[in-house]
């Protein structure tokens, strides 16, 4: 076990928590999804997110043992468990993003630190810094085509891929966990901007927000 100081960033349940989009829902509203909606937006708020940095081999062994998932072998790779609740994404040659259900991240971090011991690595809890948005529906790709500079055509962006790229005038991580679903990981400080951008860009597809 390393001597890094760690603490559980989750507050006690007595203190109400708000998603990064709470302000946006109040200020910009949330159009309901209807039968004419060709794309729906859903926030999966308050998930546990960790950034792992270090050597691929050491980290791969540790996460395989602790999480039961291996690191993606290829750049831009995204792997997830069968239920799609836990995922690991390649961010850079020595950096990976782990997303787990909310509340699991501190235990995961502690167990990884125990397993990694004195190895050369870093684990940062970024749960409070970013949020995950899901886009679903036939027009989701069209919406992304208007938004990101990366080529999101299925031949170039197959399932199991995730990239960090320019999103409107901000940046975001764009991931494709399944055929029909796209995920965006946006920074908390950009969340309102991204949300309003998606509502505006998705207006022509009658975008609906599922809450």
């Amino acid at each position, binding site marked *: 076990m390393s001597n890094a100081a760690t603490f559980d960033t989750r507050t006690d349940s007595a203190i109400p928590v708000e998603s990064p989009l709470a302000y946006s829902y109040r200020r910009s509203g949330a159009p309901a999804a209807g039968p004419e909606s060709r794309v729906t937006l859903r926030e999966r708020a308050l998930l546990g997110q960790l950034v792992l940095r270090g050597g691929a081999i050491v980290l791969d062994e540790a996460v395989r043992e602790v999480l039961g998932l291996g690191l993606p072998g290829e750049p831009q790779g995204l792997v997830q468990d069968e239920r799609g609740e836990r995922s690991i994404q390649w961010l850079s040659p020595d950096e990976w993003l782990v997303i787990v259900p909310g509340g699991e991240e501190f235990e995961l971090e502690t167990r990884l630190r125990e397993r990694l011991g004195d190895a050369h690595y870093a684990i940062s809890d970024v749960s409070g810094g970013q949020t995950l948005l899901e886009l679903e529906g036939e027009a989701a790709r069209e919406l992304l085509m208007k938004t990101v*500079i990366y080529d999101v055509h299925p031949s170039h962006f197959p399932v199991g891929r995730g*990239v960090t*790229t320019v999103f409107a005038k901000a940046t975001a991580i764009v991931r494709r966990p399944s055929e029909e679903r796209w995920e965006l990981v946006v920074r908390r400080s950009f969340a309102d901007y991204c949300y309003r951008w998606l509502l505006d860009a998705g207006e022509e597809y009658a975008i609906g927000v599922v809450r």
Partner: protein
Amino acid sequence: MFYIYCPYCGEHREEEEFHPKGQAHIERPKDPEACSDEAWGDYLFFRDNPRGVHHELWVHAVGCRKFFNVTRHTVTYEILETYKMGEQPSITADAQGQPREAVAASRQEGVRA
């Protein structure tokens, strides 16, 4: 607009994701205390401005956030190759003497400028 091959991401990305960081392969004097003012000034302030093949440092600022080297032709704007930090370029200004086609044939990564 450049279409730049990031050697760490292993694919071409839009120039918008990158940022240029100036001349590559600048070595800090091994013993700054012992080096002359002129050598230190050269290291600190003076950069090449060649007409032709130029080695540059770029960073994939939106993306993997890694620095890497780009060999670019300053007249044609053509990117002749990109390579990781610590590696040496396979295309240098010496190759300028060769016919244009030979340089084009030996390049590893291209660009649509």
